[in-house]
């Protein structure tokens, strides 16, 4: 009996505990499954889409959804379903890519700032304050205009303004972990600064970071759609939900499916990421 108990205890690590709590949240699991499906669909869009995103069907302009065009066609007779898939691909690409940039910069700056403190902390945090107080959407637009349209400039534009929040979060978490006793104990057994940062502090603050990553992705996707909406997103004819919505606004009363399809996809995607983020927050905040 005792042996069995022992076996059960072993291997119930930090992550196993979080997963156990996460599993209880049905909405979060639903969101996670959906996120995986979305990422999968996004990656495989070129093979799954029934038509190329820029193939024009002049004989079938403004066709409501039917068996041939599952989500109807737009003003140029392009298949909306195919365009939704390609938009998803762009959204996932921009969402994950820009969020990776943001996480990298934010964690580096926040960890350095919180760990070393003093002058370094002061300088880095003033930079963060400046970025925070600057109207970020305006800066995004200016950056895209200066750098030219394209994935890379969208990544740079979004992460240039987005990392400040992550840096603040990581700095705060670092400060609270830094003063805990096991950091001093590690120092006393000869750990170097970088070991303490990456082996002792980072793993202890990974929970809030993961939550921030997941809750940040929808925001990034929304920003990309926002840029596309005013014609600064990915370059047409490459589709984006924002671009599709902007094209559909004039047609809304006659062909509502043109607006509802991309808007619906956008909402579903953002919701599922948010559900995962909320589930993670609850699972991560319940600490042992």
């Amino acid at each position, binding site marked *: 009996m005792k042996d069995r108990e*022992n076996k059960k205890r072993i291997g119930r*690590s930090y992550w196993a505990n979080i997963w156990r709590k996460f599993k209880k949240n049905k909405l979060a699991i639903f969101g996670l499954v959906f996120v995986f499906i979305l990422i999968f669909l996004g990656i495989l869009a070129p093979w799954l889409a029934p038509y190329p995103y820029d193939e024009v069907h002049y004989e079938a302009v403004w066709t409501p959804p039917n068996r041939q065009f599952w989500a109807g066609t737009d003003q140029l007779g392009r298949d909306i379903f195919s365009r939704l898939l390609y938009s998803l691909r762009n959204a996932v690409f921009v969402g994950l890519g820009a969020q990776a940039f943001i996480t990298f910069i934010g964690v580096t700056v926040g960890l350095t700032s919180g760990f070393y403190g003093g002058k370094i902390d002061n300088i880095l945090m003033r930079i963060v304050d400046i970025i925070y107080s600057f109207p970020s959407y305006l800066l995004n637009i200016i950056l895209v205009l200066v750098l030219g349209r394209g994935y890379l400039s969208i990544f740079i534009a979004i992460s240039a303004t987005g990392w400040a929040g992550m840096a603040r979060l990581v700095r705060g978490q670092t400060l609270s972990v830094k003063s805990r006793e096991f950091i001093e104990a590690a*120092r*006393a*057994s*000869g750990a*170097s600064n970088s070991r303490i940062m990456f*082996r002792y502090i980072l793993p202890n603050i990974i929970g809030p970071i993961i939550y921030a990553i997941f809750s940040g992705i929808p925001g990034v996707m929304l920003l990309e759609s926002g840029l596309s909406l005013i014609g600064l997103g990915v370059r047409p004819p490459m589709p984006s939900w924002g671009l599709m919505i902007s094209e559909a606004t004039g047609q809304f009363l006659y062909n509502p499916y043109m607006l509802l399809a991309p808007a619906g996809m956008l909402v579903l995607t953002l919701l599922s990421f948010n559900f995962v983020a909320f589930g993670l927050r609850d699972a991560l905040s319940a600490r042992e």
Partner: protein
Amino acid sequence: MEPLLNIEDLRVYFYRPEGVLRAVDGLSYKLYRGEVLGIVGESGSGKSVSVLSILKLLPANGRIESGSIIFDGKNILKLSKEELRDLRGKDIGIVFQDPMSSLNPVITIGQQVMEPLLWHNLCSKSEAYERAKEMLGMVGIPLPEERMKEYPFQFSGGMRQRVMIALALICRPKLLIADEPTTSLDVTIQAQIIRLLKRMKEEFGMSVILITHNLALTTNFCDRLIIMYAGNMMETGKTKDILYNPAHPYTKSLLDAVPDIEVEKDLIPIPGTIPSLIDPPNGCRFHPRCPLAMDICKEEVPPLFNIDTDHYSACWLHRRA
């Protein structure tokens, strides 16, 4: 014989907004190889600070103002950061007061015990694993191989302190510092931990500094004691001499405040509180609370008077007229 550790006139000050706090004010002592030294004092008497300075692990506002710390022939205060890091964990191991918060909660016990060996490049990973397993067994952790896969939250307080001791000893240090290792544990566990420290000392033959505010813990373990008060050394000598033949009024009042299970007696608390270290009293720092205070105690700091072989006391009462 060359002492392993020689501290001379150590002064550690903390810079606070209210003023300069003199946590340790002119402390000197020697520690020989294989010796167990107990440093006893109330909270805030500077006992922890004096040993944390040996590893230079003071908080940011603390500074070693003057003095020298010679460990194993090296002046610690002149070492570079890298040399210092090499010393920590390898030549000097330390066990902290609170085992509940001294272990990294997200790394397994096994890895944590192995790490000092790997950081100091003392052996290969597989050898480190074997040594960690052996060490955990030696400090009395049953089924060490299985327990190595577990995380700190799966260990009780006493077990965690055993892990901390294994961690401090894994590199076979020359000096083990135990900073109130039993304060946050049950009385029965306290005895176990002290017994374990004693056994480990006999096994590895290192020197030990035991910091405590509990005189009872020192009796069977320490060879020599230092009684500290308000950053100063009050009395030092062999444990037996201090416990059975205390010279300093402060030591006497400390002993009066210790309960004895065999003799029914009234415990006599020491009146007053420990003085402010920012604005300490003139002369002997104990004089405001001392029942035997004389005029000279208020004016001049007493030097250490020799009472007996290796037995010194800082009190004007011993001055031979």
